[in-house]
């Protein structure tokens, strides 16, 4: 009776989502083994072995796993699945891409995006953009689960590393997919889903240039990630990977500053679990004020430069 966690990493290190998913894995009550599959991923493997609550680390290093494409990685996870009764991964684009493929190959009905472990086979998960919380019980012999990271505190580091077992991952007989390129623009800034502070902008900015000019200095002062509402993304002010909301990223930082965002349901679904919410908006009736801890009624073009100076 063991749980297998598929680690999210970039070969050089683990993503924070892995430590958060591990927290959920530990709550399942069984031993947790962590699979680190990649190419030249020794550093990520060593980091996994020091996570608190891990019983064992499986390390698969192979050329065909370099970019962790869904097809070869799912085949590897399925080949290892036998002794495990639960398979878990973060509900990030990595886990969302991978786990349903694994689940279908195992003929398991997956439970996506869990926010609470009620029992080893029963979980809470948000539906309808977070407007309804479903308690769901699986009936399959094996469970495949993805975990919403913002709902779990990341586990810490342990002083002693656990055993690492190297496994051989045979190259697939046929190549269905291949990696062409990646474009990861802003490595200096914290990632949205891992950031402690997020400064987020909406339609009020009127242009991509204003979006940058007014939000960046405040974000720099706070060491914050930058987010955007769907309206700002649709208008072309910000790239889609900054989108916070039901259809974008779900975040829960210590501080979320919503600037010129009215507070559509779809946006609130992505950030309402933040610890402290600040809303800055011209319209005193904007729905965002109903969930904000602190509100400032006013123009973002006046308030943001003042805020940058005051920090």
């Amino acid at each position, binding site marked *: 009776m063991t749980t297998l966690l598929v680690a999210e990493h970039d070969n050089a290190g683990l993503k924070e989502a892995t430590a958060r998913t591990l927290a959920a894995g530990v709550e399942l009550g069984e031993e947790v083994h962590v699979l680190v599959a990649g190419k030249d991923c020794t550093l990520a493997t060593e980091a996994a072995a020091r996570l608190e609550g891990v019983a064992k680390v499986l390390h698969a290093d192979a050329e065909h796993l370099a970019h962790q494409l869904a097809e070869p990685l799912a085949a590897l996870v399925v080949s290892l699945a036998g002794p495990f009764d639960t398979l878990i991964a973060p509900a990030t684009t990595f886990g969302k891409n991978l786990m349903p493929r694994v689940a279908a190959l195992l003929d398991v009905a997956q439970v996506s995006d869990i926010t609470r472990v009620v029992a080893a086979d029963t979980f809470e998960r948000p*539906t309808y953009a977070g407007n309804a919380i479903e308690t769901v019980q699986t009936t399959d012999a094996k469970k495949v689960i993805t975990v919403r990271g913002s709902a779990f505190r990341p586990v810490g580091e342990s002083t002693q590393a656990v055993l690492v077992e190297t496994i051989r991952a045979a190259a697939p007989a046929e190549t*269905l997919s291949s990696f062409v390129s990646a474009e990861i623009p802003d490595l200096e800034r914290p990632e949205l889903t891992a950031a402690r502070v997020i400064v987020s902008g909406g339609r009020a900015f009127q242009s991509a240039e204003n979006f940058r000019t007014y939000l960046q200095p405040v974000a720099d002062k706070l060491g914050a990630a930058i987010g955007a509402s769907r309206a700002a993304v649709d208008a072309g002010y910000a790239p889609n990977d900054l989108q916070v909301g039901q259809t974008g990223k779900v975040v829960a930082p210590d*501080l979320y500053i919503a600037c010129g965002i009215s507070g559509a349901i779809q946006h609130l679904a992505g950030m309402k679990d933040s610890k402290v919410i600040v809303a800055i908006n011209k319209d005193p009736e904007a729905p965002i004020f109903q969930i904000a801890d602190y509100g400032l009624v006013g123009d973002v073009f006046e308030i943001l430069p003042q805020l940058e100076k005051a920090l």
Partner: protein
Amino acid sequence: MKILVPIKRVVDFNVKVRVKPDGSGVDLANVKMAMNPFDEIAVEEALRLKESGAAEEIVVVSIGPAEAADTIRTGLAMGADRGILLKTGQPTEPLAVAKALKAIAAEEKPGLVILGKQAIDDDCNQTGQMLAALLGWPQGTFASKVVIDGDAVTVTREVDGGLETLRLRLPAVITTDLRLNEPRYASLPNIMKAKKKPIDEKTAADLDVDLAPRLKILKVEAPPARRSGVKLASVGELVEKLRNEAGVL
């Protein structure tokens, strides 16, 4: 090439859903329904591929109640060529839907399946990946750009922190993300024309698939409400509160 576009009938995205007081689910009586927005993007992308000459026929398929025929008509009015309705009265879980779509793909033999990355009711984000797995096909999820290139397709994907571009061997499954395109509105003449386009009705028994749900929904609750806070007079006051009251600076 034929493109298969699975579409789902869901609550309209503008509707604020309410949880039933008895905790048995969400109240869907007299609520406006529409095509899942990500599936609209999928239909649009298929239409653009057809218009560019990369595809010849677009088949939209929906699995759900008899009313899902309306959703299929919407797809036909946008420009799809014909529809398939798999009628079921049961709640549709992604694994069961993927199995049904696999059976339909075996009959239709599409070169590409394009569908939404997730349905905005259950928010599962599973069906496309599961279908790809069952068919043994490659998958390009969360696509923001799709280019057909001979016997392969290049897909740019929206991943955490940026973009990733993959090359997939055809046939393949693609799931759509928001920025892939902006779906067109159906024109009145096309809505009229769509009424004459064929919709083939099937049952789970015809396809020999089991649609029975595997997950038990024990209860459905509204999320805990967040209390609203205070409006402040100045930036100075805000910074002071964040520092001393909230302790987050």
